């Protein structure tokens, strides 16, 4: 007599799992959003939403001269002359503080390390720029044996593991650009 009840209970459990699975997947998914609003000219608006897992998956599949196995070649002269690895290593071990400040009539520029983030700010009369990158992402970017490449795939993984963050925020009279990561698939 109890058999049908057991079957019903198992069915209910299965239905429950089936309904819960997509929700759980959605909760765990991290999204990279890009929003560009241009108030001049044709008033262009760009909205891009990309699951970070998708970017992680497709990046190693791209094989160009510059990008291979999720690693980006940075062989340009000028960049080669700078030992980025040494710079980042120095940043890692340095305490929080300002590395660069430029004050001029037009704008003020500030580059700093603050609470585990590398921060760049530009404050001007008609332009504000904020860039913040978690140090873990910067470290992951340089997690490679070749000094002339950046490990973009590792940086994406580090970014996905990080909490919600606004990476780039640019606002001026003509346009605004915002790049951020969160767990929502929409920009609303």
């Amino acid at each position, binding site marked *: 007599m109890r058999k049908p009840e057991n079957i019903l209970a198992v069915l209910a459990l299965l239905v429950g799992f089936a309904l819960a699975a997509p929700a759980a997947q959605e909760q765990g998914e991290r999204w990279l959003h890009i929003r560009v609003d241009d108030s001049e000219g044709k*008033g262009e608006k*760009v*909205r891009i939403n990309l699951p970070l897992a998708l970017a992680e998956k497709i990046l190693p599949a791209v094989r*160009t001269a510059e990008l291979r196995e999720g690693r980006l070649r940075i062989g340009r002269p000028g960049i080669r002359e700078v030992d980025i690895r040494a710079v980042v290593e120095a940043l890692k071990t340095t305490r929080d503080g300002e590395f660069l400040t430029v004050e001029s009539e037009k704008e003020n520029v500030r580059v700093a390390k603050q609470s585990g983030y590398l921060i760049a700010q530009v404050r001007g009369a008609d332009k504000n720029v904020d860039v913040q990158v978690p140090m873990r992402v910067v470290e992951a970017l340089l997690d490679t044996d070749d000094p002339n490449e950046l490990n973009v795939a590792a940086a994406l993984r580090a970014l996905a593991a990080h909490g919600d963050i606004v990476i780039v925020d640019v606002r001026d009279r003509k346009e605004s650009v915002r790049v951020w990561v969160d767990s929502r698939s929409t920009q609303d």
Partner: protein
Amino acid sequence: MAVLGKILLGLLGAVVLAVVLAYSEGAVVVRVTAHQPAGENVNLFLPAAPLPLTLKLIPNTHFPQLPPEARAVLPALVEAAQHLETTPDFVLAEVERIGERVHIEKRGRKLIVEVESPDESVYVEIPLRTIAQVMSEVERAQSLLGEHRSHNCLWADSLLPCP
């Protein structure tokens, strides 16, 4: 009469089965609606399943050799299409400017592209699995084409590897 009836029933069954199989992977839909009087309206509704098979039948040499930049992203497109099948629905990209709009969305197991312009509206709907299959066929053909050209292979008309 009974035998003829059975044959007709068999034929009907085969046709129904063929249609069901052809549409088992969904359909590729292309709709172009012109906004100008001289413009043309296009309505295309193709079964998706036979498309990769059709590509297999095209001789290797009839494939145009894609530029290296395009070939480089083919495996990524296959991966992307496969991965998108399991992600929740979302709007991948939306670009708007005065009088124009492009909207790319993942809906269900399909990729939907909508383009609005003063001249026409375009609606394209492609099953993600078809994108993955078609891209991997194109990728395979491109690599064989490259091999054949580099070896000056006499078997270039075939998809089979050089002997």
